[in-house]
């Protein structure tokens, strides 16, 4: 059995667990704990402390694993371990919480430094009325026009599929460009 993996990262409460949950064929193995910090508790009740883990069986020979990183910076020692051997990564950003954009940018740079694999930035919660406009997010996140910044609703399977496909197209395109 061959296995490949992708990593879903992003700041606290960006929607990483939901993203994986939307497409995983197994119940996401989530290591969630109740939140102790009052400010974070106002955003959600539990958070991922080690990793989320989802699976998509491609065929009898191939399985894709999706790993979600812990969102809180104090668990960032896990990031490098999770990034090892990844095919590519997705940076989830909560479009309604601009206060997390700077951290999202920093996480993106950190992961890109770990491994120069293709990535897609996923602007999550675009269905909410407070969501920032994609192009405004591109400016604030300082993303080059070549970087894929894709609108997303992590609870919607089709939306998640679109993000995964964008990442796979980027991987394929990089392989083809590498051959030229």
């Amino acid at each position: 059995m061959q296995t490949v993996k992708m990593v879903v990262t992003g700041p606290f409460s960006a929607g990483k667990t939901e993203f994986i949950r939307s497409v995983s064929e197994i119940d996401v193995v989530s290591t969630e704990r109740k939140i102790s910090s009052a400010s974070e508790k106002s955003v959600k009740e539990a958070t991922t402390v080690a990793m989320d883990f989802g699976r998509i069986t491609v065929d009898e020979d191939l399985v894709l694993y999706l790993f979600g990183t812990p969102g809180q910076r104090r668990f960032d020692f896990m990031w490098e371990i999770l990034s090892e051997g990844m095919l590519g990564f997705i940076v989830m950003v909560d479009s309604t919480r601009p206060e997390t954009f700077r951290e999202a940018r920093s996480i993106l740079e950190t992961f890109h430094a770990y491994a120069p694999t293709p990535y897609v930035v996923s602007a999550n919660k675009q269905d909410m009325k407070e969501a920032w406009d994609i192009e405004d997010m591109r400016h604030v996140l300082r993303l080059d026009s070549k970087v894929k910044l894709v609108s997303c609703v992590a609870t919607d399977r089709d939306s998640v599929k679109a993000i995964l496909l964008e990442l796979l197209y980027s991987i394929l395109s990089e392989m083809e460009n590498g051959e030229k």
Partner: protein
Amino acid sequence: MALSGNLRDFTITQLLNLINLANKTGTLVVEGPSQTAKVAFRDGKLAYAQIDQEDSSLASVLHKAKKLSSGQYKSIQQDAAHISDKELGLLLINAGYLSKEDILTNLQQHFTDIIQRLFTWVEGFFHFDNDSLPPDDRISVRLDLENLIIDGSRQMREWEQLQDEIPSLDMALKFTDRPGANLRNVNLSVEEWRVVSYINPRNTIRQIARATKRNDLEIRRIVYGLLQAGLVETTRREGASTSAPTVRVFPTEDKEKQKSLVNRLIDRIRSL
């Protein structure tokens, strides 16, 4: 127990706070990567500060503050090098050239500037020599530390923010190819231009800092400004080792099989 340690564990601001609260008397010696600073305190108040290898004589301080002309400074160095700061100060006051307040204000500013520079030191070792004070021939001041501590706290917050923005100095920089980004239309300081001159995907930010003699905080500040202005962007250093991670990305080395694998993944995701 001796008060000594590493600036990574204990910042200058925290040290000043401790000295202030404990009303300490003595000299804090800070050994940075390229310089050593000595800062003396009396009863928890700043008394004197100097950085080794830098002229901190009264004549030099007054010259830098434009209270002495270059000619006057030169002649003091030539003809009055043997007289102490205290004697020179008295001579200037008695001659009616400067007041006592002028001298003390300029010395306080000079010492404050040194402390401000120390706030940018994030690497190095320190120790506190109890009861050690500056030489008798030097003029000391008596400056409350509270305002300096507040300044230092601001810089600490800035440092944390800059670390978040630029987490690694091992990244390189390149100019953005964004249309409209034009360096010629931007007002840069001499230091910023110096950094700009080294921007090249082959140079890491750390290498640029070394070449331009900037410490971690200073280089982060400059790079952050350039990033915010949209003039540069971070990139992996060209020629950096891209050795495969310990876990393989693809289960096969064959390029065609790799492509086929990605296509199988695409088909599967589409069918979900």
